[in-house]
């Protein structure tokens, strides 16, 4: 990885990681590595997640019962833990998404006044 590449990546805002995880598992249960990859891929590699920091976040979400965890078999037939969105998590995702949109809209308006 070149230093230039690193500079173009944006560190995640506090708390947004939770939102991204919820959004990712909404599409279906996934294991940790897959979630990390999906976030990086879907953001066209702009968002840099220190992969390790995913785990405390996942556990936080489990504790709040926004996602649940289940045993499963991965694509290459290995046992893995899959994280699945709960009903409570789905509601939370809606709330968080709204909040985020409002925030982003507000900031955008400030930065680009009409």
């Amino acid at each position, binding site marked *: 990885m070149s230093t230039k590449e690193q500079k173009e990546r944006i560190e995640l805002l506090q708390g947004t990681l939770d939102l991204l995880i919820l959004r990712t598992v909404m599409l279906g249960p996934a*294991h*940790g*590595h897959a979630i*990390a*990859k999906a976030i990086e891929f879907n953001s066209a590699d702009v968002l840099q997640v*220190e*992969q*390790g*920091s995913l*785990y*405390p976040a996942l*556990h*936080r979400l*489990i*504790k709040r019962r926004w996602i649940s*965890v289940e045993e499963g078999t991965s694509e290459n037939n*290995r046992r*893995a*833990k899959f994280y699945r969105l709960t009903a409570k998590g789905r509601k939370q995702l809606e709330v968080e998404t709204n909040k985020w949109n409002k925030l982003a809209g507000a900031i955008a308006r400030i930065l680009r006044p009409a």
Partner: protein
Amino acid sequence: MRRRKQMMEDLDQDIRDHIERETQDNIERGMSPEEARYAAVRRFGNVTRVKEETREVWSFVWLEQLGQDIHYGLRMLAKSPGFAAVAILTLALGIGANTAIFSLVDAVMLRSLPVEDPSQLVLLKWGARNAPNIHGYMTSGDCPTNLRPGAANPTGCSFSEPMFREIAQVNVFSATAAFANTGRLNLTGNGPATVINGQLVSGEFFHSMGLKAAAGRLFDAADDTPSAAPVAVLNYGYWQSAFGAAPDVVGHRIELNNVPFTIIGVAEQRFTGITPGSDYDVWLPLSDAQRIGDPRDKSRSGDVSNWWLTIVGRLKPGTPIAQAQAAVSGIFRNEMLHGSVPLFHGGEMAGTRGPRHGTPAAGGAVRSQVTYGGGGPMRRPTGNKPVTPPAPQHAAPAGGPHNSEIDSGPQTLSKPDDNPNVTLVQAQTGLTGARSQYSNPLYVLMLAVGIILLIACANVAGLMLARAAARQKEMAVRLALGAGRARVVRQLLTESVMLSVLGGALGILLAYWGAHAIISFVSSNQARPLGFATGVDLRVLGFTVAVSLLTAILFGIAPAFRGARVDLTPALKEGEGSSTSSGHAGGKWFSIGNALVVAQVALAIVVLVGAGLLVRTLQNLRSIDVGFDAHNILIFGIDPTLIGYKGPQMDAFYRDLQGRLSEIPGVKSASYSMVPLLSDGLMVTMFHWPGTPQDQNSEADVLGVGPNFFETLRIPLLAGRGFSASDFKLSASNSGATPTSAPTAVIVNQAFVEKYLGKENPLGKQFGESAAGPDGPASPGYEIIGVVRDAKYNSLRREIHSMMYMPQSFGGASFELRTAADPQAILPAIREAVAKVNTNLPLFDVKTESEQIDRLLFQERLVARLSSFFALLALILACVGLYGLLSYEVSRRTREIGIRMALGAHPGSVLKLVLRQGIVLAIVGAAAGIGVALGVTRYLTSMLYDVHANDPLTMIAVALLLTFVALAACYIPARRAMRVDPLVALRYE
């Protein structure tokens, strides 16, 4: 719990899988397996920290880590026991001193009244723009009173008995109670006669306080009626000491001032009196006031213009204090503006009873026409017997009517313009009692120990910093192994808290011992036990815990952050992290360590200066010329009026006793006076001085004395003659109901001559005659027959005022015996002599004049002694801090010193190198400290005597003392530096 364990085990597996997958991905992208694995781990981040953070999600981690920290902290402390011992001891001294003084503050200022639900109990205080038009006013010392003649906005908490009866009817209170001191009570019927003190209380008193009896029963309303049989309730402590806690005391008969009383019960143990610091032996119903009291008091129960009762009320549940106040104030105002004042009672109402205060401090600047205070620094109810003014012609009541007002027919107590009103204050804060005279010294001491705690904190912070420097490598290793910085700070703070908690625990022991030592010192100076009980209660414990934690944060925070802010690479590479900076350490004057030492020295200077000023004050007071010879004088009080002596009998009694006492072997001469000199008792009289306007009052101190008074006390007679037997006879008849036309002979002091006569010949001068008027019959006034040297009267601090001595012809007296040797040895002979005159007359307040002065100076001695002790402590702590810093510097710079020596530096110059740092720090600290002291000491001004708050001599002496002690503290590490062996030093590390 199980879930958490399961989650953590799964996490390990998850992380392994994750990294493996990432590695696989990388390989697929064409990396070599090794490279792929390395990139995957880097991509993942700090595995340990991820695990830590995840574990924290499953919480209780906090507790778990605390356990680890404590365990680890203990191990670290055990590894350096010297450091731990010094730190804990320092903290124990700091926290202990604070806890000890706080436990006194707690006992005197904060403890709630010893009654049920004290928050509902309110005290009534009156106020007005001008003094009310009253004949008599007496305070029992329960609250601050301001009733000086002519004082604006007078205030107080004594009311008339009719006012109390009226207020008791108001329906805002569920109960009301009134009380007043009894004055001296002569008790017989329980062994030899003794003098005790008591409180008169209304029938509802105990009930309204929610108090219970330890034996028998307490008063009820039926006991407080004029027809009820006289009954008494004992104080628990007095029951134990005087009656041996005999259970059959209930029903026992005693005589108080020759009146038989039946003991009906003992109050519960915690209750010694409602006002802080009060301690009554016995409680009597209000209705018995006349039986035991001065016959002159007979009229006061129905007299609206004689105020003598303190009133408290218990608010009805749900009644706001403002509503109650409006109701009570309305009644008071109505009575003041519309009730009529009875006319003067001729010879019966002889004027104002003196406000009863032990010291002027107790009641603000109260000084009324006649002021009588008890001896000693505590207000002693025994000393509060109302004193009758010497003769009716002095009887212009304090703040009372002027003659012209009296003449103009019936008067109201107050005018509408005066806006008489009552405020209700919480009894807890309103009943100050002895509290107010202790508050100042306590605040000063609290400040001193607060500063000591700061010094202790700075001291330990210095130690911790030195240790943090030594532990840099350890910290670097921890950080390198993945510990978060916050985690390291927490670990270090845990160690600080452990130190301060251990220090606090030891401090409580020190405080317990210290508070006891202070209390026993206090008690040894009191005629009666102190009405304050100290002890370590919950509030004190809470205070100590809070102080300990605060301390830990204060001294721990800087080292902790410094510890966590290690630059990893150099710290790991080098044996000793800080040695990189040691090369230029000599030139780097501003460091935290230096700043801490300067702060300690400065703070110590402040305490030292304060203590120095207080000690100088004590010395100044001790070396005052009191104007008489205070050595080898024995004093005792005796009051024949309590058992019914009257008029001419008194004179004969005193003369008889004086003769017998003079004959005792070892007694050189004997005399008596109304109160002993320097006993805090003071009487002031007002008179008309010829040549001044008719309505202008002049005033002078006055003291009734017996024959030979001046010879016995060795006050030189400068002109004229002493009192003769006929002077006494004349004085006796002039102070009776039918005065003669000849003026009373008086002897005045130099100050009197200077103030009123100037160069005029004082002998034969007559003054103070008055015509008959509503204030009393005509009086012939006084004639000066002699002049004596100035002598101090009631206190050492008070300036000598103009003073007149007159022949004592009535009232209780205090005998003064000049003895050849130890006054205590002849005490039995004295008791025998008194018993021969009357077996029922107890001696009270037996002491020597020097003891008396000691008691007068008690507060000064207590404060001087404690503050000196604390100053010494501050000095030691600051010097230990200085020593610690220099020792650390020397050991840190061993290598540098070795190189210097190897390059040919003289040991002397090495010594100078270290000493210079120490001395510069001490001098900078001392200068800063004196700067602070200059600003702060003015708060001490009210406690000082004859020394300015910014006394240069004290400041210089203190600074010199500190510099010398600091020099000694520097010398030890400096010598160690001088002896550094270059060879050893260079091999070191």
